[in-house]
């Protein structure tokens, strides 16, 4: 292709070509999206209740709060926090394990390639959405009403909330498995169970453990607060401190929670880089 000798520059009388970034259809879509977002935001700002007096002395209140938390009440550790911490750990871990077990059948039902029945797919998907929509704190309320206060309620709350999370990601992983190996097994006459075990499971296993680790990390954080509604763990200690307005105890609980979260994150990233 030989380059032209024309130097770039306007030539008198030539038609000016225009460049538009978006097609008219795209432009309408984008304008609509912006409009809706703006309306939602402006409306929310105008109708949200903010009591100005409270807002003005907020910095003062915050400083006051931190001043009351210091010095931290270390004795609270032995009185309540250490035990509660162990309970929190078990709640998170056991809850995650239970969720993993319960999520597998639901995920199998929700995956379109594993379960061809649309009705079952929708039912399973509804179970997963319902599980996810209800916050673990609210699940905890429900289980405290059924099983009484304590770590059992907390564990079940964690479990039931996690089913939706784990199940959704597992179902997606199942739907994305390449169909080749499955076809091979079906062609060889393998029964359903074997196909699941030897065809699907090896392919989703890495995702499974990755999701499990991810959810466990989140669950440790969640377990720490369930005690606020009586479901056991360090949240109970936190709640005790808050109710009595012993801010130094509250400070200790917050510090412990912070350390635990950091530790969990280090643990999960180490496990991830070593094994996954």
């Amino acid at each position, binding site marked *: *292709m*030989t*380059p*032209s*000798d*024309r*130097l*770039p*520059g*306007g030539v008198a009388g030539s038609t*000016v*070509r*225009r*460049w538009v*970034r978006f097609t008219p259809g795209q432009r309408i879509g984008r304008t609509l999206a912006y409009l809706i977002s703006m309306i939602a935001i402006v409306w929310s700002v105008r109708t949200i209740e903010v009591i100005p007096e409270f807002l003005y002395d907020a910095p003062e209140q915050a400083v006051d709060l931190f001043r009351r938390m210091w010095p931290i009440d270390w004795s609270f550790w032995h009185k309540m926090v250490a035990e509660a911490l162990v309970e929190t750990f078990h709640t998170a871990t056991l809850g995650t394990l239970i969720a993993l077990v319960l999520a597998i059948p639901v995920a199998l039902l929700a995956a379109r390639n594993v379960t061809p029945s649309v009705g079952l797919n929708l039912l399973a998907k509804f179970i997963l959405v319902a599980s996810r929509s209800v916050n673990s704190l609210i699940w905890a309320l429900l289980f405290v009403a059924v099983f009484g206060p304590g770590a059992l309620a907390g564990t079940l709350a964690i479990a039931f909330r996690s089913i939706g999370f784990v199940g959704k990601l597992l179902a997606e992983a199942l739907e994305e498995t390449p169909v080749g190996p499955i076809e091979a097994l079906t062609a060889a006459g393998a029964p359903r169970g074997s196909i699941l075990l030897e065809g699907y499971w090896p392919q989703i296993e890495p995702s499974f453990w990755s999701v499990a680790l991810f959810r466990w990390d989140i669950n440790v954080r969640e377990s720490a607060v369930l005690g606020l509604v009586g479901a056991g763990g360090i949240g109970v200690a936190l709640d005790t401190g808050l109710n009595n307005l012993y801010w130094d105890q509250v400070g200790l609980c917050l510090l412990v929670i912070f350390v635990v979260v950091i530790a969990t994150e280090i643990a999960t990233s180490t496990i991830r880089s070593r094994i996954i």
Partner: protein
Amino acid sequence: MSAALVIRNLRKEYRAGVPVLKDVSLEIGGEGLTAIIGPSGTGKSTLIRCINRLVDPSSGQILFGGEDIAQLEGRALREARRRIGMVFQEYNLVERLTVMENLLCGRLGYVSVWRVWLRKFPDADIERAFELLDTVGLGEFATRRADALSGGQRQRVGIARAVMQGPELVLADEPTSSLDPKTSVEIMELLAGLAKARSIPVVVNIHNVELAKRFAQRIIGMAQGVVVFDGPPSALREDHLIQIYGGQGWLE
């Protein structure tokens, strides 16, 4: 013809005591295509990238338009870069942007942030972009996404982007190494024609000695960080090539 680019005693060490460029001095004149040849690792790429400061030289001067680029910082450096266009081996287009937007990147040194955000580039720039697209044979491709193009097409866009800057010097870092032989010739034709039409120097790093001899007015051979040959293609002989590349096996 006064020199557009003067390099004096350029030296670059990536690791202390292991210089990749050892005392390179060159003067590049006002027009024509200059090809730099030499084996991999000999500092060709480093030399080119020092010129527009994508790599910082360890010592030496790079005089362009009277200023020493090696000493410039901040705004002054950006203004110097505006006047130097660059073509990359792997095209380095922003893949998710359209061809037109990639071309307009050439004007980023001249357009304010607000206009760039809203994509309200001056009409003159847009018109110029269309003309350049015609010149490189991609007139209908303005709204295509860059990652939908073939390698040769992408490199044409890369060249057009460099020319959009209205540069006084164009650098090309192995522009044909990722392309097939036929497309390589087309790209070199574009670059050579560009040098002639705009009367600016074009400096090209290239592996392929045949292409270099065919399109360049001047060949610079480098080996182990120093210039070992500098002259017209007609003066390039076999013993020069042996000195540059070492060994004879590849010549046969």
